[in-house]
């Protein structure tokens, strides 16, 4: 590959092409999955249990061998230039496991060394502080709680300052307050230029943090887009309003409201909104039609489906009522 081609390709942190994994028992964990993770992005990889997320991450981490397909990592062939790629990749695995002989500080020093980096004590101290492990830095890892161990996994993945960090369920078992601080830290890391690929079951967090998303279902990719595009395309929007008087069936059947598919929701009515070719919602038209039929409302709100609704629909798990 020429330098120019490599510079162009490096715009993607990861390019997964036709990745397939069939386990010896015949289970097809990944089936022809292709998507790209832009460099510098905060990327959510979502899917229900058994969708293939962990298999995909394990292939990136060199813990599982792919059956077919290719992955380019920062412009290089991941499977042919493993050592180069591994030095620039940090992975937080889903399973928590630590050597019982060492303390968190030892774990970070050893991990740094294994990646060929002499331990940077200031960075190790900062990681311990930011991940709220400083008070436990010299205890044996067996003495740490589940949440502390998971934060140590995050510190371990960051200690060699990778350019791409993969987080497989990093906040499972971490309480709300610590989770929020962990995400603040990850945002900072991301703003400093590190690409983050995240799997999580906390979809509201994924929606808040991530600028790109891919969704897997039974080993197949069902969506891979910038978060904004996906939500604009797939998240339905509604105008909910509460008229002054009681809503009668005849009003709901009024022809002026027909295209908004009105229905009773939470003591008011809900009108389905649509977007024009420029992506703008027809809120104004819906409002005018509602005022013409019911009179001025006493309460009103525009509601949009969230990532969880879209996720549930894409993964065939039904949706929630707005």
């Amino acid at each position, binding site marked *: 590959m020429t330098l120019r081609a490599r510079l162009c390709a490096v715009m993607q942190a990861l390019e997964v092409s036709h990745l397939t994994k069939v386990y010896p028992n015949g289970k097809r964990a990944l089936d022809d999955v292709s998507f790209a993770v832009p460099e510098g992005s905060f990327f959510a990889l979502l899917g229900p249990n058994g969708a293939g997320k962990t298999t995909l991450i*394990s292939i990136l*981490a060199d*813990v599982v061998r792919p059956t077919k397909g290719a992955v380019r990592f920062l412009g290089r062939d991941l499977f042919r230039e493993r050592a180069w790629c591994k030095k620039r990749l940090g992975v937080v695995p889903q399973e928590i496991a630590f050597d019982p002989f060492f303390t968190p500080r030892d774990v970070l020093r*050893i991990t740094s*060394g294994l990646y060929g980096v002499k331990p940077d004590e200031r960075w190790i101290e900062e990681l311990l502080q930011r991940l709220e492990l400083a008070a436990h830095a010299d205890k044996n890892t067996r003495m740490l709680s589940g949440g502390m161990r998971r934060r140590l996994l995050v510190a371990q993945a960051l200690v060699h300052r990778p350019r791409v960090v993969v987080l497989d369920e990093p906040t499972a078992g971490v309480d709300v307050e610590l989770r929020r601080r962990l995400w603040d830290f990850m945002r900072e890391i991301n703003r400093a230029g590190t690409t983050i690929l995240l799997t999580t079951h906390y979809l509201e967090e994924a929606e808040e943090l991530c600028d790109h998303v891919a969704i897997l279902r039974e080993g197949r990719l069902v969506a891979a887009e910038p978060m904004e595009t996906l939500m604009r395309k797939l998240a339905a929007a509604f105008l909910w309003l509460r008229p002054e008087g009681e809503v009668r069936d005849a009003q709901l059947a009024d022809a002026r409201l027909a295209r908004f598919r009105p229905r009773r929701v939470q003591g008011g009515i809900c009108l389905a909104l649509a977007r024009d070719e420029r992506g703008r919602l027809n809120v104004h038209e819906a409002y005018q039609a509602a005022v013409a039929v019911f009179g001025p409302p006493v309460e009103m709100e525009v509601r949009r489906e969230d990532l969880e609704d879209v996720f549930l629909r894409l993964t065939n798990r039904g949706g929630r009522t707005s």
Partner: protein
Amino acid sequence: MTNPYGCWTLFVREVRRFLNVKVQTIIAPALTALLYLVVFHYAMGARPRAQLPVDYFTFLAPGLAMMTLLQNAFANSSSSMITGKVMGVHVYLLMAPLSAAEVVLAFVAAAVVRGLVCAGAFLLALVPFVHFAWPHPWLALSYAVLGGAIMGALGLIAGIWARRFDDVALVTNFVVMPLTFLAGVFYSVQSLPPLWRSLHLANPFFHLVDGFRFAVLGVADADPWWGLAPLAAAALLLFVLAWRLWAAGWKLKA
């Protein structure tokens, strides 16, 4: 070598692992060897041993030192690998930018150090009681390093192959223990019938014990110089095998 500092770190980690539990990994094996020495010496003390050019106590000591070295080198790499696999921490080695050769080198070198430390502790405890001539100190070191390397690589292979602690115990109890006990540690092969003598000559551990004894005492049952080359070849072969297995991810990657 693409990541020498990573290889060094792994070596230090493996050494620190056994130093962290030194009562179990150094003191206990050295004490066991001392007990063997005392028990065999007093149990067999009354018997005439015309074939032995040195007294039985002195004869036993280098063989026991080598036996301790071999068993502990094997235990170091095999237990580290199977513990890592059972606990799931071996994935951190798979994820790290270490080549297979670097991983094997670090494990084998740490196993050699464990073997040397255990055998050294045992011999050190004997200083007030026995005088060793050490006519060939470099040969002693060569045999010790070769023995540690062979068993370190073998232990690593056993650890990679094993799925449970029981599998490693199987290799320890049915391969390592019989071969080390039947390696002329407690007797001279000159006292055995011809068939048994030939079988002993085919046991590589016999050459390790006999060669080390020659280097420490100057007495041997077989040609100690001849034993070096095949042992070095065996160490190399096992190193390459462990390297290929790690590189292929055999029993390590799904």
